[in-house]
């Protein structure tokens, strides 16, 4: 290992997990000690990650309050070190952490709201994609429809929750008229997150549409996704789903897999 690599690995370890400083660091400075300096770096590390989480999870922070959120992020940061120089990538595992974080168990829907906020965050920063070429699609001979592979917008995510996460999320957006009468027993729901004209939209969709879109996102052909969806949801309306997903910018491209 090179000296530089050795020095900086020890330094990183002392910032992230509180290990000792590299020996090569000078001990004393003009008006403070090396320990003070290290504490500044440790605070910066935790503070930057806390601020990143606070930016990504504003609804969670409102739901649990600032003080509890700080406790929660402190524990999360200790368990999940940063893995990317781009801070926008930090915090993907918060939902799974919340699900196991004992002090948060009294708020059963918290993990699902965290999962929703993470995909909203990803949708906000997702790459741009073009619009679906409807003219080209209309040229595809009908006998090839089952083999069409649709490409969904990079911002598009489908979630399913036991709780009314969509209502909870909307009630905690800036300027929202708070609805404190959300019925937590209103039953499971499917949620579609996608970016429409640069704004992240969160809305409930039917379970059939959610299943079909999940299939499409997983790479299933139009035929495969539709057959699988109809098997579980006989009332699935393919034409309506296609129209809705196209006009809302969820489907952005297609390719045609030649029948073998």
């Amino acid at each position: 290992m090179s000296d530089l690599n050795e020095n900086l690995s020890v330094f990183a370890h002392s910032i992230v997990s509180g290990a000792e400083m590299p020996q090569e660091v000078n001990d004393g400075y003009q008006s403070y000690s090396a320990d003070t300096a290290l504490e500044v770096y440790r605070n910066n590390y935790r503070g930057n990650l806390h601020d990143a989480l606070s930016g990504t999870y504003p609804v969670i922070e409102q739901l649990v309050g600032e003080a509890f959120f700080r406790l929660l992020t402190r524990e999360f940061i200790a368990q999940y070190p940063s893995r990317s120089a781009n801070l926008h990538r930090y915090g993907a595992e918060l939902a799974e952490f919340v699900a196991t974080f004992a002090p948060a168990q009294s708020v059963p829907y918290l993990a699902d709201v965290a999962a929703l906020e993470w995909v909203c965050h990803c949708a906000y920063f997702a790459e741009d994609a073009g619009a679906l070429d409807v003219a080209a699609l209309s040229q595809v001979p009908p006998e090839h429809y089952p083999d069409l592979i649709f490409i969904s917008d990079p911002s598009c995510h489908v979630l399913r929750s036991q709780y009314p996460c969509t209502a909870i999320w909307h009630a905690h957006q800036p300027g929202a008229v708070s609805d404190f009468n959300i019925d937590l027993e209103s039953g499971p729901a499917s949620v579609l997150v996608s970016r429409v004209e640069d704004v992240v939209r969160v809305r409930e969709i039917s379970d059939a549409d959610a299943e079909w879109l999940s299939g499409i996102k997983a790479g299933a052909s139009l035929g495969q996704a539709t057959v699988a969806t109809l098997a579980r949801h006989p009332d699935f309306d393919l034409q309506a789903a296609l129209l809705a997903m196209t006009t809302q910018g969820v489907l952005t491209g297609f390719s045609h897999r030649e029948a073998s």
Partner: protein
Amino acid sequence: MSMPADNTLPCVAGIGLRAPHYREVLETLPRLGWVEVHSENFFGGGAPIRTLLKARDHYPVSLHGVGMGLASPDPLDTGHLDALKQLCDSVQPASVSEHLCWNTAAGMVVNDLLPFPYTREALLHVAGRIDQVQAKLGRQLLVENLSSYLSFAHSEMTEGEFLAELVARTGCGILFDVENLYVNTRNLGVDARAFVDAIPAAAVGEYHLAGFSERDGCLVDTHNNPVFAEVWELYEYALQQIGPRPTLIEWDSDIPPLNVLMGEADKAQQFIEACHE
């Protein structure tokens, strides 16, 4: 006055454009010489890049990276570099800069701007990475001096000497952060005049000015205050020795109303004009 190639910022004062001011700036189009943003905040598509492109229609834009980790011992993150290249292609910035620091070692990422020992080994390493970044971007990079809270006993040269070597080896330019240098004089006993003497004036493409805070005797580069008198004094000295350059007012936390930032920029502008006279 000589200026680094590729750097087409006007030689006037500009401000760091941050999220709380996006709307006001785009709606009122105040008189700003130029704006600088943190590159990583505009990686990807959607609203961030669209906002920046609108600003780009009215002001020269400088892209200032906080995540490349030029001195990190781990391999350069090519995904990060690709994203910066994509951003440069769409924004066509007047200037692109990064910090002389590291953020990743042995797979551990510290999302901060960290100091390292100024050794020959580090010099070869950093120079190679600057070459890699400049080759990918097809343009010159400005490299910013760092504010540090600690130093390494086995450094073989000063930061100023290290920067001068980087310029000679890679053709990069220098972003001279006057506040960072001031923080280092107070924290580490760095000789500010020796720093100014060590760096090649012709390579300096931009100045930064900001306010720091203090924690247990250590000055911390928090960018949450107006520029202090001692930093204006050092800026004036740099202007005399190096010459006027595009100058940025940076404010990143406890961000004040836009007119406060513009007042600070006006003050910097007066220093620049006094220097021209």
